[in-house]
């Protein structure tokens, strides 16, 4: 089968790889019809996530058709059209029981902080991802969800990560009606967080980034205010000033390890990798939020050490909430929002690219070329 093949930082290609097989009685094999490149794939692409082995196939956002099921799979059947949450969750452990599906304790032997994730390095379990023609899906009765009849596959594929992560970013902000929400990062997740903040009753939604076309897109898609931090002397002072010198009620870090905007963070976090990525967005979030406010983090950072202004967290009495999205928990609500037109996921897709052109697709997304917001990869078998 064709699959994306990681060869080292900034180098990926398409290759023939062995077909995945059932390795556990609760496995399924899914034929991929759509997969995406996610902003967090860029952390892998840039070589920032430890134990990303050469030969890996990335891709944790995908939908497809069930081709084969293991002997203990009861709910899914061959031919089902499914969307597959990016978290691999057993549904039985103490954390899954709390609906913390992103923190499953039976899917990632290599690390205890995070559960298994498709195509996201051995630090997230060593699973092959969905930027391929076929993928092995463990715990097939837990995560995979049959796509409702009539739902556009382009909507469905964004329900595997982008929509739930953006939604949970807003949810973790504890937004109360009328609150001012500031989001750092106008990538797909940041834009979705802005969109979802309104569903929680935000009174004002502001997004901050440095890429003009993304800001323009965010302004139209999420009906929010959008600002370029390069035009500001200091983004924190800007937020204070625009909130009558109080600070935002809620700040969301939707960037993570690849954040630009601070030379020291760029050198120590992204270039020398002396900390778990550049923590610029996190600094801005902590320092821009109101005293007693909430900082919500969905930006991905590597392990282990980060130079964060923890003193300010204490002094300001900030609540910090952060996690990988608990996709399965959120899906029923989000499917309803999509079906009722409150969220239009496919409206974010700007590029549909044949899987065979994965190298160029990564370059376009990574370098923000051709006004790219979100890229969908389509395997040859799904194009006929």
């Amino acid at each position, binding site marked *: 089968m064709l699959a994306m093949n990681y060869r080292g930082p900034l180098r990926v290609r398409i290759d023939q790889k062995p077909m995945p097989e059932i390795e556990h009685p609760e496995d399924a094999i899914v034929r991929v019809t759509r997969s995406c490149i996610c902003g967090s794939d860029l952390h892998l692409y840039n070589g920032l996530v*430890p134990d990303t082995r*050469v030969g890996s196939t990335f891709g944790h956002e995908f939908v497809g058709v069930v081709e084969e099921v293991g002997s203990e799979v009861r709910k899914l059947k061959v031919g089902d059209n499914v969307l597959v949450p990016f978290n691999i969750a057993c549904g039985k452990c103490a954390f899954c*029981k709390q609906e913390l599906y992103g923190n499953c304790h039976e899917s*990632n*032997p290599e690390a205890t902080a995070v559960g298994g994730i498709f195509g996201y390095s051995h630090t997230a379990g060593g699973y092959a991802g969905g930027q391929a023609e076929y993928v092995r899906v463990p715990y097939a009765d837990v995560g995979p969800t049959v796509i409702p009849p009539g739902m556009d596959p382009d909507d469905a594929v964004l329900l595997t990560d982008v929509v739930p992560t953006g939604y949970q970013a807003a949810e973790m902000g504890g937004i109360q009606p009328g609150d001012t929400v500031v989001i750092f990062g106008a990538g797909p997740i940041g834009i979705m967080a802005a969109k979802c903040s*309104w569903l929680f*009753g935000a009174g004002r939604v502001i997004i901050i980034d440095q890429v003009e076309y993304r800001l323009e897109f965010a302004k139209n898609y999420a009906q929010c205010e959008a600002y370029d931090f390069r035009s500001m002397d200091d983004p924190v002072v800007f937020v204070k000033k625009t909130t009558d010198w109080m600070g935002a009620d809620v700040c969301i870090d939707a960037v993570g390890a690849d954040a630009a905007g601070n030379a020291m963070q760029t050198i120590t976090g992204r270039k020398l990798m002396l900390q778990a990525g550049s923590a610029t967005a996190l600094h801005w979030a902590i320092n821009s939020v109101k005293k007693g406010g909430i900082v919500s983090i969905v930006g991905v950072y590597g392990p282990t050490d980060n130079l964060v202004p923890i003193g300010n967290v204490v002094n300001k009495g900030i609540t910090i909430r952060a996690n990988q999205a608990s996709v399965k928990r959120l899906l029923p609500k989000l499917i309803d929002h999509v079906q009722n037109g409150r969220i239009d996921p496919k409206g974010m897709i700007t590029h549909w690219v044949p899987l065979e052109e994965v190298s160029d697709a990564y370059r376009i997304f990574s370098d923000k070329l051709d006004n790219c917001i979100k890229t969908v990869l389509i395997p040859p078998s799904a194009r006929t």
Partner: protein
Amino acid sequence: MKNLEKNYSHIKGWGIDADPKNDPTYPIKLRTDEAQKGYHWERPTQQPITTEILHSNERPNVTAVFGTPLPPKGLSGKIRRYAFQFSENSYGHWLPLLLADRVDEIEGVIDDLRQGHVPNFFAERGWKAQFKHNPKAIATKVAVGALLVTAVVAYLRRSK
């Protein structure tokens, strides 16, 4: 909230998920007797361990399922095995893993050549797309590269 709704009537679904009880302490801890017993859940069937799986020393076992396509191998594999002696709390774990990734990159090129495949760095880096959408960046890279090569050649000639 009713007054606010009027202000946001242009946004479909405004406030539909507003919940004054959206408590920052979510998820509420499950305070059951069972939960106090640690590994109390009925574990899923264990996936057969037919390949080398490295597991964190912060857990006593291998998880019920895991990925198998790329077991550790070569020098990078040796470094990875060393890294797993240390916990996720330690630089001793993460820095060797990053080093192993860089070694693995070189081993990958050697593997390609062994199999008679010369890696096409131009294509793998997606330069075709960059040339199409941002030729200036390619031109800058080529110019910087040419300058560096010229400088090195000039230095070497001078040294002789």
